[in-house]
């Protein structure tokens, strides 16, 4: 299994697909993508950022699609099928995360609807995180 990017998500037999964030050991601020170096909270000087799996479920903050093939470095499938995107508000951690949507078109999405994390391949093979209808 090749990931399109290392360290941003993980797939395990037991727990399924998780985004990997970081949590500041001092103030508890959580980040995605995982952040190295210092805490993004301007009132916190901590550099102790610990990787943690983020909640797998969330509610759609907004969504759209790409009716025309996006330019490189995106690799568009041939024939092109519009990419659906959703920005999803993750339960508990208060972050909105953008991702491709698997198995749903814009007509099947709604703001506020529940989705969960999965993974799927880019047109040239490597896996990326994706949102799908919550089971």
């Amino acid at each position, binding site marked *: 299994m090749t990931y399109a990017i290392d360290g941003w998500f993980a797939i395990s037999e037991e727990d399924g697909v998780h985004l990997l964030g970081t949590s500041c050991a001092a103030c508890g601020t959580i980040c995605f993508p995982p952040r190295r170096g210092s805490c993004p909270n301007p009132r916190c000087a901590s550099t102790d950022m610990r990787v943690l799996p983020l909640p797998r479920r969330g509610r759609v903050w907004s969504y759209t699609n790409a009716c025309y093939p996006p330019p490189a470095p995106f690799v568009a499938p041939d024939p092109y099928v519009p990419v659906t995107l959703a920005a999803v508000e993750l339960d508990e951690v208060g972050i909105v995360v953008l991702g*491709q949507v698997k198995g749903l078109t814009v007509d099947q999405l709604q703001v506020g609807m529940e989705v969960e994390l999965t993974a799927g391949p880019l047109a040239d093979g490597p896996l990326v995180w994706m949102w799908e209808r919550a089971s």
Partner: protein
Amino acid sequence: MSAVAVLGTGMHPWGKWGRPFLEYGVAAAREALRDAGLEWTDVQYVVGADTIRNGYPGFVSGASYARELGWSGARVASCYAACASGAQALDIARTRILAGLCDVALVIGADATPKGFFKPVGGDRPDDPDWLRFRLLGATNPAYFALYARRRMALHGSTPADFAAVKVKNALAGSLNPMARYRKPVTAEEVLASPMVADPLRLMDICATSDGGAAVVLASQEYARRRGTGFVRLAAVSTVTPVFPNTILELPDFATDSCAAVPAPERPFRAAIAHAAYEEAGLGPEDLSLAEVYDLSTALELDWMEDLGLCPPGEADKLLRDGRTALNGSIPVNPSGGLASFGEAIPAQALAQVCELANQLRGRAGARQTAGARVGLAADQGLFGHGSAIIATL
């Protein structure tokens, strides 16, 4: 805070001309100098807003323009801030004048763009979020505009017809602007029949990529007064970053900040941009005669109206439908025709907004003129969380 004087403005018409960006910038600069009644050799400080698609001359645009205009020994600076480049270049010149380091400065921005979507800078660059958003998600700029538009529909009940009405309004204003690229009025039916690009936004909801140039001559008030003519004042240039946690998904990011440990600030980022300018100028939204905002999409213009405080959240559609933001309305928004009529020429567009403010305040906007215009605000936003609001007064 004391103001600096806008002595002159100039533009090169927007379009898809296929010529080097330097030509557009120099044409705009010469026009601004003519307008100010100055020679290039009178300019003590030249600032270029950078264009990163046009090679080395674009990266060091200040020097490139100075060379084109003829080496004069002027002090020089260049500045890149994506879509906010023009505003930051203006702020650099203004600050130097306010510091007493020079009396006359020339600010120039110009661009020559390729066809189609803006793409990330070339090469294999997995450390760059701007490159990664294309690689991993295919998330173009219009995709982000569409996320805001769809969110607005869900939150405030805006409809595609409302978005189309913004385009109709701006196209009508643009048809009266000789500098605009698109000079044809459009109907709501045409907008709603144009191809879907990023649902719910159609081709005519999204601004095109354009060639174009704009320039502004700034001077100290003392210098302007000595010349004995009236002038427009720059009362504020606010360039601010967001306050943590920024809970609106910002182009080109993958995610917002988390509001789990620190609550979201009372004032969202775009509203904070305007607020900082109001504070600096000692003015408020009720003082505005007109506003130029970054209508990268039709829907985004509605968001900006609320962020500028022209109406409470969720009421921009009503203000639009009532005709209040039209050319003859109580608070015209994008009387220049906006990005809808110009398209994006990135380093030039914030300066083009200032050209419109100056034209309106000087009463020379022709058929677009806002009667008795005294205060104008222009707002822009760059990538990665920064943006500016500029207030000009008589």
